[in-house]
């Protein structure tokens, strides 16, 4: 497959309060973006552990745009927590050899059509240039993140 023919699979978890209606506004304005951008609704991406994103890459998602609310987040403290988690995840991706450009956190408001188009197109172009995700590399990272979150159980058992 030539690099021109590669169409990446882009996942956009978009918040119910901001980014999802923002994406709707793009449609209402009849503005265009590529059809390989799949948007899923989420109350707040703060609910996703690291292994969720890594699992997506492992399964073959080539790029993820987390479209949140930024400072407009209706949930107290959620955006800060999310930012921290994504920072940590990016470090792990870099260390583990997974291109960090595949994951991006951004804020899209309910009427931010231009920001939405810019973000999805930029990520799409970047990921196109990178080529398909290395699912094996992602698997190693995914397994490590699962081990890490489950350490809680082991510590608990050891304490008893």
């Amino acid at each position, binding site marked *: 497959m030539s690099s021109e023919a590669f169409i990446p*699979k882009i*996942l956009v978890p978009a918040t119910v*309060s901001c980014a999802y*209606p923002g*994406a*709707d506004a*793009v*449609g*209402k304005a*009849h*503005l*265009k*973006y*590529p*059809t*390989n951008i*799949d*948007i*899923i*609704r*989420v*109350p*707040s991406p*703060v*609910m*996703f*552990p690291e292994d*969720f994103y890594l*699992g*997506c890459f492992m*399964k*073959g*998602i080539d790029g993820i745009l987390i479209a949140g609310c930024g400072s*407009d987040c*209706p*949930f*107290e*403290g*959620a955006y800060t*927590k999310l930012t921290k*988690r994504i920072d940590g995840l990016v470090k792990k991706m870099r260390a583990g050899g997974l291109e960090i450009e595949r994951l991006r956190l951004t804020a899209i408001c*309910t*009427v931010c059509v231009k920001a939405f188009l810019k973000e999805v197109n930029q990520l799409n172009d970047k990921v196109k240039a990178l080529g398909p995700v290395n699912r094996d590399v992602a698997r190693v990272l995914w397994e490590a993140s699962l081990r890490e*979150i*489950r*350490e*809680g*159980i082991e510590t*608990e058992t050891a304490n008893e």
Partner: protein
Amino acid sequence: MRTEENNGVPGEDIRIGVYVCMCGGNISDVIDVDRVAAAVGEIAGVTLAKVHPFMCSDPGQQTITEDIKTQKLNRVVVASCSPFLHELTFRTAVGRGGLNPYLYEHVNIREQGSWSHKDDPDGATIKAIRLIAAAIGKLRYAEPLEQIQISNFRRALVIGGGIAGMRSAVDLGKRGIEVLLVEKEPSLGGWVKEWEEIYPTGGKGAELIRRLNEELERLNEVTVLKGVRVSDLSGFVGNYNVTLENAGAGDEAELREVLGNAPYRAQAGAIIVAAGFEPYKPRAGEFGYESFPGVVTLPEFIEGLSEMQIHPEGRIFWRGRTVGSVAFIHCVGSRQIEGVHEKQDDGKINDYCSRTCCTAIVRNAALIRERFPGVHVYDFYQDIRTYGRGHEEIYTSAANTGVTFLRYHGEQPPVVEKGADGALLVRCNDRLTFGEEIEAAVDMVVLGVGMTPGAVGKVSEVLKLPVGADRFLQEVHPKLRPVEVSVNGVFLAGTAQGPMNIEEAFSAAGAAAAKASILLNNSTVQLDPFKANVDDESCIGCERCLSECVYTGALVMKEAKGTDGSTCRKAVVNPGLCVGCGACVAVCPTRAIYVNGWTLSQYEAMVDGLLNAPREGARIENA
């Protein structure tokens, strides 16, 4: 509701009905809906996949309810418009069919499908299949859910005491519903009480306000607080807590009498936002405003009208100015064009039509001609929009009284300059004479300023009320839910939502009151069940979730008996206080805690659905 039949385990005994809406061509002109239905019909668990011209119509909804009964469906997917429009519609239809309403998934193939991908029908079709496959994946892990019942505080808070707020308060009061009406100014009546004449009925605005006020005063249910504003707000539908503060003109003794000692707090189950509008304030120099004496806004002109006197020579005195000719300019601060008009302070232009100014301008133009036939009146317009019953007649009368109409192009607005002897020159390329450059020397220029949104302040900030591109508050749907906003229990009345005339503001206010009554007639409100929940068996009591939750009381630990009979601790959620953000979910080592309706397993199944969706299929059942 929890039965063996509709609570199937993944992959087992699942019977899914998929409905693909054409939206009368809005979807089907781009997306090949038959191919979508055929392809998703191939997915395991899909019992039927149908195409319908309008799923939201009664026959469309009926198809769902009938299929649930006859085809024994236990999961339903509708692929149509944005879930913000019709998720509730179809969820309710699913409920009517006898199925738990939360065994439903909504797929957006219009706003995020056909409308965004007009140039790629094939790609849009495949994307629609993928999104439906994702929804089917999510439904495999769906559980029947029940709404949460919360007690309802049966009082409405009406913010803004203009005509809209007053109308809403009267309507609610007459239905026996307690109302707290707050107005930041020292008196009720807003802008309308200032107006010399209202159109097309005639008479003073103040008279209308007096009649409304009489009705208000007769109602024991309505408490009016003037000179106060909302300083803080919290809570949710049925349980809003509002704090009021003196806006300068408030009567402290009255406030204390009604609400007790400061801080002045009150509860309400519903909120009606009737914050009104502000007239557009031209920039200094815009059409000569504030640069040349004699250039005034329409409200300023009308204010001066009452004191206008007849000059012996048939001219008029307007605040000391002898006026023999007047020019009106339409669309000042409205229908602005990017690149032509200077941007507002927030970097936006006012591209909307203010809708009410045309009638006001032509009525005043006619009024001058009627009362002072010696005065020349020029009307510079781009389009005349005197819409509504009785308004066309006002336009006709202006033409008959001899007002001279000149039509400019939106991209070439008239120019106001200083002429000789203190006169003003208005220059315009007139489209009525096919592009003739016309120059009118006048004594006064009246700017037909439009409406800009009134300050909603703290309420909008706290409740995060959605705002349109025009900065006015935005309804859920302009046709289907015109006075509701996406925040439950909050309704819009009048010009806070957009430019309206008095009739329209009255109708909107009546509708908002009706909607609020529906809510407040119940002693309880139902909340969506999308709150955190704990699976006791897998909870190991590690308390990691507890340290993530910032909502006091939403998540606590309780003592429980373990499988071996020993005592252990488990996390418990208070669904009334939980907001369903899911911060707790991400840190749970055993996935014991999850948000109802949005579990991690469901998200993973969605991703699997997206990646493994078929592209074609053979099976098709037409509705």
